[in-house]
């Protein structure tokens, strides 16, 4: 069963064609690097999977269920692109913010109980930030906030993790730890991952599949196939393709 199945998806912003007839499937345990140039529609595509964008036509299935009938939100963890978009004066602690990720498991009235607090603490420990539990999230550094928001995405133990440019606020050392953690989740816990990044050269280092889009699907497959593809060579130009793949080899 495909975890995500998208068929003939079209999205417009007014008269602007943002996503054009995109189809692809993501299987259980896949780690997909979703990449493309600025304005290619990466974030829009990811947001469409979450129901945050209005689609013009096409279908989205999550875990085999049509999107309109889908309700198992606890199976999905999401790390938005702009984690700094929250109000920095909001007096929520890191622990309280991570707890919001558990609401997808709850029925009305949603309440965070003692067992949930243990889950929150364990998830904070997983990302090495248990010492930040009672700190206001607005007072944390960008890297610390990123880990708090990743913990929020992971606290419900989702089967699908959607990450939108997660490494932008991280320094190189933290970025390495971050990707190592994500890689472990994918391998050890079989968490399916879709990672949006503009860094096509390094994405193959982490992901086992590459989805390159430019409003439409340009390439979808293994990174090694991308490097040996004659189609990609003619699309990017052989020198650009070589630079991308060489950059990957160096990593």
């Amino acid at each position: 069963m495909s975890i995500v199945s998208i068929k003939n998806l079209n999205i417009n912003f007014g008269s602007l064609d943002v996503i054009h007839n995109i189809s692809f499937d993501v299987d259980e345990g896949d780690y997909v690097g979703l990449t493309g140039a600025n304005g290619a529609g990466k974030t829009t595509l990811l947001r469409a999977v979450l129901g945050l964008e209005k689609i013009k036509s096409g279908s989205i299935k999550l875990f085999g269920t049509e999107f309109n009938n889908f309700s198992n939100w606890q199976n999905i963890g999401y790390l938005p692109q702009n984690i700094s978009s929250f109000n920095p004066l909001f007096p929520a602690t890191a622990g309280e913010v991570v707890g919001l990720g558990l609401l997808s498991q709850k029925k009305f009235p949603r309440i965070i109980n003692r067992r949930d607090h243990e889950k929150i603490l364990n998830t904070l420990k997983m990302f090495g930030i248990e010492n930040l539990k009672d700190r206001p999230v607005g007072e944390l550094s960008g890297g610390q906030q990123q880990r708090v928001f990743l913990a929020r995405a992971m606290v419900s133990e989702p089967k699908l993790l959607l990450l939108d440019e997660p490494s932008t606020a991280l320094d190189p050392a933290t970025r390495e730890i971050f990707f190592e953690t994500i890689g472990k989740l994918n391998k050890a816990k079989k968490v399916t991952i879709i990672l949006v990044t503009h860094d096509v050269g390094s994405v193959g280092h982490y992901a086992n599949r590459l989805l390159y889009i430019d409003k439409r699907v340009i390439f979808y497959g293994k990174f090694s196939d991308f490097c040996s593809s004659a189609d990609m060579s003619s699309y990017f130009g052989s020198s650009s393709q070589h630079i991308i793949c060489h950059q990957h080899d160096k990593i």
Partner: protein
Amino acid sequence: MTLFSFLQFAFIQKALIAGIFIGLLCSVLGLFLVLRRLSLIGDGLSHISFGAVALGLFFGFYPIYVAIPVVILGSLVILKISEKAKVYGDTAIGIVSAFGISGGIILASLSHGFNVDLFSYLFGNILSISTSEMILSIILSAMVILVILFFFYDLFSVSFEEEYAKTTGIKTNAINTLLVILAAVTVVLAIRIVGIMLISSMLILPAATALQIAKSFKGALLVSALIACFSVIFGIIISFLLDLPAGATIVLLGGLIFIAAFAYRKIFS
């Protein structure tokens, strides 16, 4: 007269009981509104309530009974305008409140008779609250607080980051609708304490003060509630002892506490 002998007066007891309930309600709901940058909705809804109170007085109905449905309707119109029309929330509030104020002024002008009553609603007087008004305040405040408790984490999540809340299955549109309806009921209830002119400060001041010193969301709720209760209790006592208007005294005390909390944060953080 001993220091606390004024507590034997029934009108003081009623004022304190109703004031504490409504103060608690304003402080809890106000925190959500302030954090969602919807503080001005209190102002907008109070302007609508001005028109609604005038409407009630014009037709000879008890104004609060007229104000509750009219202000709820106004709050929903504000929400719809900000969603559907290409305007920001503050513009939608401005559009709807203009109807409330202008409608109220025209009705007052047409009636030639109820201007004095209307002024009593503009400035409020909790010390003249009747037993039935006190009971109505307690019941409605308790109901709204219960609704907030039931939807606490939904409101928290939507206030923190609306789009993320949507990805956890929370019906964010329904929660937004609930929030403005609760705000409408709260504003109408607060008319009798501080009057139409000062309602928004009952919503804003305890929450804004709590944000100066609280380090967690639950802490902010607690501090906001304590400050509201303190302002109401001591505002009523001071106004009685010094023969000052109760609503204005409560709000002024709340303003002074905000200044103190702001100074505390600047000095100690």
